[in-house]
């Protein structure tokens, strides 16, 4: 990487930034899920690693969450943007050099931020836990350079139209910048009380709704038509999806605070909007599944489509849960329980991770012109990830229902802890499977770079048969 930091832009091979982002994202995924497995072990076995506050759950949880969101998910997004945005505009990335610097500064900043969190320096606000100095760093050296590169590539495209994926990419980097700047105002202006609570959850909600969800969906809009060769089923439904994400996902932040003393009318408004999150979900799922028409064999034969369609299918339970769990009728029961933890993992480890993994698999093979080293290992990664995720999600959902019942019926807390213990062990098993699967993935991608079969010019990775 260092040799390209000071090279001329013209001398940097196209796709370099995407490759660095791709490998960085996998490494952060391993770190993030390793920390997750460690944290889950602490909840399953309370005597595991005690005596040092550095390894206390309160320190480690934030490091896990931010390693996964800023390291894995967002860097995989950056990777996808670095190669998909120019490809869809029939052009090159606006600045490969900016992309390489972006990746370098991203890794440095994230390492610094996670170290601060680890040592206990935190804003104390869930999802926006980084201290203000890291927030500024993220805005200046992570979000803005990425946004500039994406916007300039779209502006300099060699097509008249802009494909659906690039609407989402262009808008996603804009929206996340606004969300980041506004959502961190409690940190910068010392807002307290209800303003702090509301903005904290406005940030957390919109990072999910206006960054992770639309950008992950945008990737599927690329991978499914690209690999199957089918046209996207409907440009019109793309409009419905895009605008409904912008309109309905940006407004329901108050539904995270249904028990807080916010104005009740604001909760009513947010709760209706919360159910309407199903509108973009229905548009997205129907558009992608109908694009698969006549090519469903790819769901079995092709690794990237297997990942993508699994992610698309997971959007159904994700949005059914998300839409209804925030209504007053259900929220009073499951609020503050493991159900919510399960839901968050369905969003980040289920829906979005499967879509991003497809983009990283496909992108790395395409850019490096190397066929995946081992399909067997790829399939092993898929199934281990899916089984690990499902074990986690199901066990935490059950644990959440137990906690909800115990909360409502005022069961003594220690009885709840005992009742949910088996599910905490299952959570640890699931998380550890996910962690293990990612080590396999890194090995497979490392070997792809070193020993993958070369893809002849003019061909795409999915057009070639596997040799191993």
């Amino acid at each position, binding site marked *: 990487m260092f040799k390209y930091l000071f090279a001329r832009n013209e001398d940097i091979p196209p796709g370099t930034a995407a490759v660095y982002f791709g490998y960085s994202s996998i490494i952060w995924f391993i770190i993030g899920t390793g920390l997750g497995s460690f944290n889950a072990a602490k909840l399953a076995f309370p005597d595991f690693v005690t005596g040092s506050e550095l390894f206390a759950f309160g320190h480690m949880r934030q490091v896990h969450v931010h390693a996964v969101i800023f390291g894995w998910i967002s860097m995989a997004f950056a990777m996808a943007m670095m190669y998909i945005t120019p490809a869809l505009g029939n052009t090159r990335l606006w600045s490969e050099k900016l992309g390489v610097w972006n990746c370098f500064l991203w890794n440095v900043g994230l390492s610094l931020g996670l170290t601060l969190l680890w040592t206990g320096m935190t804003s104390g606000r869930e999802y926006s836990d980084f201290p203000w100095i890291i927030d500024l760093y993220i805005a200046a050296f992570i979000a803005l350079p990425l946004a500039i590169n994406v916007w300039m590539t779209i502006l300099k495209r060699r*097509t008249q139209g*802009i494909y659906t994926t690039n609407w989402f990419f262009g808008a996603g980097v804009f929206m996340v910048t606004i969300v980041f700047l506004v959502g961190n105002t409690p940190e910068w202006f010392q807002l307290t009380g209800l303003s702090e609570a509301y903005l904290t959850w406005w940030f957390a909600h919109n990072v999910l709704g206006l960054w992770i969800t639309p950008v992950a969906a945008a990737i599927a809009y690329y991978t499914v038509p690209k690999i199957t060769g089918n046209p996207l089923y409907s440009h019109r439904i*793309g409009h419905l999806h895009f605008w409904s994400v912008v*309109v309905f996902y940006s407004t329901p932040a108050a539904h995270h605070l249904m028990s807080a003393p916010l104005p009740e009318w604001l909760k009513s408004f947010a709760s209706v909007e919360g159910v*309407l999150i199903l509108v973009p979900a229905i548009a997205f799922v129907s558009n992608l599944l*109908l694009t698969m028409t006549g090519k469903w064999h790819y769901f079995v034969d092709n690794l990237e489509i297997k990942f993508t369609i699994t992610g698309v299918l997971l959007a159904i339970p994700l949005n059914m849960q998300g839409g209804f769990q925030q209504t007053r009728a259900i929220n009073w029961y499951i609020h503050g329980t493991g159900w919510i933890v399960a839901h968050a993992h369905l969003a980040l480890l289920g829906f979005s991770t499967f879509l991003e993994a497809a983009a990283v698999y496909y992108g790395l093979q395409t850019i490096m012109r190397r066929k995946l080293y081992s399909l067997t290992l790829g399939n092993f990664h898929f199934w281990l990830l899916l089984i690990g995720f499902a074990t986690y999600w199901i066990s935490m959902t059950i644990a959440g229902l137990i906690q909800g019942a115990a909360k409502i019926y005022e069961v003594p807390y220690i009885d709840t802890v005992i009742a949910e213990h088996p599910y905490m062990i299952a959570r640890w098993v699931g998380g550890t499977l996910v962690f293990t699967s990612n080590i396999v993935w890194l090995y497979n991608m490392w070997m792809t770079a070193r020993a993958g079969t070369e893809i002849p010019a003019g061909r795409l990775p999915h057009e070639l048969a596997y040799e191993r």
Partner: protein
Amino acid sequence: MAWRFDNPLYTLSDEESNKRAMELWEKESLGGLTENNNRLPVPVVWLLALTIVTAFAITFPLWGQRPTAAIYEEYIALMDTPEVQQIQDDAQKMEYIVRTVKAKGSKYEALQDRHPVDMDDLRLIKDDIIELKRQNADLEEYFVVGPDVVLANFEGNLKPDGTRERKQPWWDKGYTIDVFYVAYFCIAVMIAVKRLPHYSWQPDHHKYHHG
């Protein structure tokens, strides 16, 4: 990109604009990807309509709220009765109170079940509730938040005395805003898609691209 309004549900673009759009649609390759112009399948349209209706319907009954002071009024009235006073154990006292109120029948029975309390809780809120009753306050307008009895944060209709009703409404201005918000969204998206060529036209992707 001229507009036409003679058949708005068919198209909002004039013929020239539609023709240019159709030609570009077929001619241009966006990184090797193409798009069709299919409409939203009719069952999915109904599913979306159902979603919008459900979004309002499922949030109407404002369940899961904080308990109002009114639901504990009957409990507190029983606290100082000789029957309760002669019971020594707090848990048994509470059980007697709950049983007695249930036997008499209370319009708050479901809410009482949903928000159980013990004798210590009742002792904490007792004085506040008695004071509010003395002031002829409507206890349904007050929430019990931990040890405090506070004015509810609902903003209902204006009362004759000019103050706001603080009871749980079935409709509030949040829903009114939602109605307009959803309506504006539907209109805006309709305009966006009706500016495209009508869905009866599908691009021929082989006209300019082969293989």
